[in-house]
């Protein structure tokens, strides 16, 4: 790419004025034509997770979160800190500016569709850890006009900050609120906090969207995701396509929930209750 983001934005603005910036609209109305890479590794037969079709991908990365263990709230803090430090995530005071990769909320908000007022107290009070679901059919990737967000063959929904133009279509499309926008330079609070940065990972810049990346940079080096390393008993990461993987084993043994299944995004984050 020989243009930088700002030049691109200027060009995009001009072409939008000229009525040329309609790729996003085409994708919405003709979803079959969207980028083939989005559908790589996606089981066409709609079997999705738990019954991965034979023709499916060899690797389908996913996370299972043992929420019952989170009664010990120190684990929530430990996991969140591990992610923050690994990815140089800034802390803003205002909720509006917040950058969230992994955060907590309560059952009622996490599963609004299945909320039941007679729910066991134990579950009602649990902190659920939320993150990008790395959906098998990610609406965020479908709407991105510049293919800055895309699904990799191993199932990770990746975000290419070099390409992101900050239009925030993906934030509107994600039904889970998994994405955050950098309204301001993230280095301002990082500096103010005097945070020791992870020298192995960049920061972001003003005007791009970010979210959990399943620690793609650590996986590439053969390491586990930072949250898994912090609390391996809570965060179980693995390959759904392999029937003998740890995650498949734990999903066979325990009852699991996924968020907003009715939307058809096929989330890859499972909650063990």
């Amino acid at each position: 790419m020989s243009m930088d983001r700002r030049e691109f934005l200027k060009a995009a603005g001009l072409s939008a004025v000229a009525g040329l910036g309609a790729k996003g609209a085409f994708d919405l109305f003709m979803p079959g034509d969207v980028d083939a890479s989005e559908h790589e590794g996606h089981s066409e037969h709609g079997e999705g997770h738990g019954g991965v079709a034979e023709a499916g991908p060899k690797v389908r990365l996913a996370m299972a979160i043992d929420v019952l263990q989170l009664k010990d709230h120190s684990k929530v803090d430990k996991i969140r800190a591990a992610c923050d430090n690994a990815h140089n995530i800034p802390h803003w005071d205002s909720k509006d500016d917040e950058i969230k990769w992994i955060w907590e909320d309560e059952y009622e908000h996490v599963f609004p569709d299945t909320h039941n007022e007679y729910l066991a107290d134990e579950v009602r009070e649990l902190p659920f850890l939320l993150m990008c679901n790395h959906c098998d059919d990610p609406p965020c990737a479908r709407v991105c006009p510049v293919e800055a967000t895309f699904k990799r063959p191993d199932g990770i929904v990746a975000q290419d900050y070099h390409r992101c133009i900050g239009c925030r279509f993906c934030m509107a499309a994600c039904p889970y609120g998994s994405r955050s926008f950098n309204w301001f330079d993230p280095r301002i609070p990082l500096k103010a906090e005097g945070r020791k940065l992870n020298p192995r990972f960049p920061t972001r810049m003003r005007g791009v969207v970010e979210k959990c990346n399943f620690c793609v940079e650590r996986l590439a080096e053969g390491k586990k995701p930072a949250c898994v390393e912090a609390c391996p008993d809570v965060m179980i990461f693995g390959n759904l396509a392999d029937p003998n993987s740890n995650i498949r084993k734990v999903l066979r043994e325990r009852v699991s929930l996924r968020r907003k299944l009715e939307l058809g995004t096929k989330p890859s984050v499972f909650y063990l209750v």
Partner: protein
Amino acid sequence: MYDTGKVITGLVIFVGIFTFAFWYTTGTAAPRPEPKLDTPEIQKMAKKQCIEDTQFMITTHMQLLNKLRDQALRDGNRWYVNSKGEKVWISLQNTCLKCHSNKKDFCDKCHNYAGVDPYCWDCHIDPNRSEL
């Protein structure tokens, strides 16, 4: 002609001011930048050679970086096989800046001289400095 003296004087002053930027800076050209290669990591190397030829790196590192970025990020392939067939781990912060641990005396030297402001550093950090 009327006012010949005034017109000529005016013209001389005008030409003088107009060409000010040229004659004022004559002989004061900024010296050619000499990016420094004396980092501990480079000193340790038996053969001091970047991932490709020096001349190629000087003229084409920007295109190469763009290509490697896309290969690592978009194709998920973090190994670059260079023209000698050697494998190099693709990472600006963890490979390039490991040897070139002197961003100020290396990257910035030429970039400042050439008046370019690459947006790499809007996000990427210099791993050798703890503060931003």
